């Protein structure tokens, strides 16, 4: 299975994530889509690293997974806080700041 298959998969995942980010209203779903985006990159990294045979990519992946986790945490925290004051996580209604 060639490298490009991996890259293709990653690209597809990325596209799905991007599409989700652009279309979803629900905060949680958007967070998940962002996870997709990040994991697409991770897949890339791992694929490259395994094909080129140096470990940096995998190290990088570890870093990014950790970071992604933290990010998700923060994201949920914000959403929760927002839900407390606004009683919604439908992001289309969160637009008091505009223009």
């Amino acid at each position, binding site marked *: 299975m060639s490298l490009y298959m991996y*890259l293709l998969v990653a690209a597809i995942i*990325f596209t799905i*994530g991007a599409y989700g*980010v652009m279309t979803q209203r629900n*905060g949680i779903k*958007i967070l998940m889509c*962002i996870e997709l*985006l*990040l994991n*697409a*990159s*991770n897949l*890339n*990294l791992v*694929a*490259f*690293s395994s094909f*080129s045979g*140096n470990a*940096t*990519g995998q*190290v*990088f992946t570890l*870093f*990014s997974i950790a*970071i992604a986790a*933290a*990010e998700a945490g*923060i*994201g949920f*925290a*914000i*959403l929760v*806080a*927002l839900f*407390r*004051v*606004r009683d919604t996580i439908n*992001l289309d209604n*969160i*637009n*008091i*700041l*505009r223009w």
Partner: protein
Amino acid sequence: MNVILLAPEILLTLLGLLVVLLGLVSKNKNFIGYISAAGLFAALILLLGIKGQGTFFYEALSVDPLSQIFKIIFVVVSLLAVIASISYFKDNRNQDEYHSLILFATVGMMVAASANDLVALFVGFELASMATYVLAGFEKKNPASLEAALKYFLIGSVSSALMLFGMSLVYGLAGSTNIPVIIEVFQANPLMATSSLGVVAMVFLIAGFGFKMALVPFHMWAPDTYEGAPSVVSAMLAAGSKKMGFVAAFKVLVLALVALRMDMQVTFAVLAVITMTYGNIVAISQTSIKRMLAYSSIAQAGYIALAFVVTTQLSIAGGILLALGHALMKGGAFIAVALVGHMVLLDNKNAKNIDHIENFAGLGKRAPITAFSILVFFLALAGIPPSAGFIGKFVLFYSITIEAVSQASGWLLLVVIIAILNSALSIYYYARVIRYMYVLPANGVKIHEPAPYVLALVLAVIGTILIGVYPEPFIRMALDAASVLGVR
């Protein structure tokens, strides 16, 4: 490996942890602000004091003039923000977390500044970003603040994902994450980067950095976030973390461009011109000063981005100078806005949109020092000499002009002309605020301006004017920093 060179980062990291601990044990937390301020000040001294260069952690980090000058910017901005926060978050229960977050954010930026490896760069970026996500939403009860945080967070993580994707592709192409190595590889076989994969990688990186720089079209989050976030945090974002994008761009993009002899002049010219024009024109029609400042900082990003159009040493030096100046001016301006908000709240406990321009009426009488510093910042932002803003624009525009002349390229000249027309146009909205402050009658009594605010403002004012009146050392620093990139 001489660890002294990393002393500032280490110091701040430890301080951040210390602050959290102190927060756990102590009841009244107002003293914490002073501690972190002192720590940042010490870090600044160290930065200025330390001479020498070096790389660390298997060349993951490198300390060089470029990184140092940006670190100075970051520390100065955080220092100003922290000093102001002493008053802003007075008697707030969560001061300890706030300050530790600011310190960690600073560290993150500093790491990004001296990153010599994509991993380090990414980590630094994310550390700073996450800290600032939280800071933006630090007023938990304030929907605006939370909304700001949310938007900032979502767009931020999307673009960091883009950046990561770009990095992964770069890694795939170059087989390494160490920036110098990447450059070498690219230089060895340019075709690699001119391949579509290379272009995509490049674009994703631009997107990732452009998000921080708030370049159009990656700017969408900026106005909302700057408006919604607590003013001191906005100061931090606009003045500090924004520059992280630039330093990253300098490190990666410029090097890549130079290495690949990629002709991205047009691309960046278009980006820069659109950005500055958009920022200025929209800024004109704002009534919320924070939002106006947000757009104006978008415009400023546009000016700075001109440095990428002609990647000469001078242009990058100009960009760095303008970044430095902008850090002071914009940071100061946001802090001044914070003070005005403080004033408004004194008038009326539950006042809505406290940064509305109406609240600036007669500020010259109500809060003379604030008004005067706003005057200085705005004139400097408009590029009126003698000020940091003028020096930055001076060098930057000069570098573009001479490129236009020596390449005899008309469209470059056009770019400069658009730039100067922009900076003339910007006067319109700066002057409007000035008019409110000094011409219109005051609708309130003269207030007592809290010492910390005043201190922060005065420092920023002095810095702004000092760079304008005695730019010699700063220009040298900028030139040295730019020389690191080995551009002509």
